[in-house]
């Protein structure tokens, strides 16, 4: 079943065609890799899918039925999409724990006025912070975390939204081996829960190990797609990375 689809998606920055008539279909429950050289439009694609950039054309289709010619940030959570950022964006002046708790807030604003967090919320927050090994840092401000810890906290924040689709932008880049292990475990667990992952990654070893399916982008266009073994042996990919 296709959970997410783009049709002729377009985004230009001045004369740069960052995403150029891109049409992809993403299957539910798979780990999908997006690879391609720097500047090929991978981050821009995620920004369009999460409503952070206005689309210049085309459409995004969620769950086969919901069609968008424009996504807005406030719709992203509602339609079950969570994301991380290539340049991590946390709630910097809040503690690690509060970065998670603020998401577990009930959606009803008025009831949140007087309500404190319940045991249930705290338990859930502890669970997810244990998973990324940040529970011991729970009272530190996010701004004071190390680079890798910041990346992990951002992933934890995506997890607690309980989304169906996870857009991960270079989540492994710059991480130490033990942290990479944590992230790849989380991605595998998401797959076991039948969630859908879209992972931008440069490490072909990881892509081969984790991904069920790969999209290769170049200059905003889809160059080739398919199973990792098939795609990674293909000459198109080698050419895109190394030049002809």
């Amino acid at each position, binding site marked *: 079943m296709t959970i997410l689809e783009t049709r002729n998606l377009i985004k230009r920055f001045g004369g740069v065609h960052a995403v150029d008539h891109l049409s992809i279909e993403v299957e539910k429950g798979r780990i999908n890799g997006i690879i391609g050289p720097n500047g090929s439009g991978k981050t821009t694609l995620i920004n369009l899918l*999460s*409503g*952070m950039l206005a689309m210049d054309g085309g459409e995004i289709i969620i769950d086969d039925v919901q069609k968008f010619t424009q996504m807005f*940030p*406030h719709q*992203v*959570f*509602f339609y079950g999409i*969570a*994301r991380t950022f290539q340049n991590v*964006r*946390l*709630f*910097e*002046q*809040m503690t690690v724990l*509060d970065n998670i*708790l*603020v*998401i577990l*807030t*009930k*959606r009803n*604003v008025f009831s*949140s*006025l*007087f*309500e*404190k*967090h319940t045991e249930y919320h705290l338990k859930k927050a502890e669970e997810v912070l244990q998973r990324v090994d940040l529970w011991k840092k729970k009272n530190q401000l996010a701004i004071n975390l190390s680079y890798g810890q910041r990346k992990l906290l951002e992933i934890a*924040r995506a997890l607690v*939204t309980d989304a169906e689709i996870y857009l991960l932008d270079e989540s492994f880049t710059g991480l130490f081996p033990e942290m990479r292990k944590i992230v790849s475990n989380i991605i595998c667990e998401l797959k076991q829960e039948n969630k859908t992952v879209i992972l931008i990654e440069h490490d072909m070893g990881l892509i081969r190990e984790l991904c069920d399916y790969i999209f290769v982008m170049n200059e905003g266009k889809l160059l080739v797609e398919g199973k990792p073994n098939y795609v990674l042996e293909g000459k198109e990919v080698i050419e895109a990375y190394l030049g002809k």
Partner: protein
Amino acid sequence: MEIFSQLIFNSIIAGAVYALIALGFNLIYGATKFLNLAHGVMTAIGGYTVFYFTKTLDWNIYLAVIIGILFAGLIGFSLDKFVYFPLRKRKASNMVLLVASFGAFTAIQAIIAILFNSRFQTLSQNTSAQKSFEIFGGVITQTQLIILASAALIMTGLVLLLHKTRFGKAIKAISDDEEVAKIVGINTNKIIGYVFFIGSAIAGFAGILVGFDTGIEPTMGLDLLFKGVIASIVGGIGNLYGGVLGAFLLGFVENFGIWKISGDWKDAIAFALLIVFLIFRPRGIMNK
């Protein structure tokens, strides 16, 4: 000694009023990142609502105060809903929002001047009979004690709201990164609406307190806005504690500045403080 104690009392009382205005101003700035100039006129809305209910309709004074606070909050909330929110939705710049808020300020002030006369008048029932106390040679009135107590109460309440409740955490998240807050499912527009209500209600209350202490006039909002903005900038814009600190610093500088000279210099001294900070520490005391 007597004048010294008196100046300290005056400084603290002025500081408390400025602090209330700076609190709401900074709360709104933190969430929206624009200077909401209409914040000043909320003081006049509060003051004149109480004036109308007590002097014209002869209602119970406590009831009138509550209505005044709620009404100021409601006007602030409506400004957001019908002016700022539509502008934000169209991705208007903060400069556009600032100009819009100044327009709202002027319009509301004009409406107040039309509905009531422009004379300076007090909210107090009977000024001469007001109780006052002598402490260390300085005199402090009952109204002023109420100002201090209620300002302390509101500051404490706001701190608890921000630190202890889920609502407070959402406000902080919005202040840090509104776009990300939206993406993770925080209803930012609704929360910003409540922030306007709370901030404006506190400003309305400050206006009511000023009305009982000295008096009200339709243009009172401008002077109080300036003081609130100066306190915020001096303390660190968007920083609630900074605003309170800046407010008391302003109160002290202003009142001790006129120790040996005419009280007419008060506003000039306040602006001198602002300029000193804008030159030497534009980010304010508390902001890093």
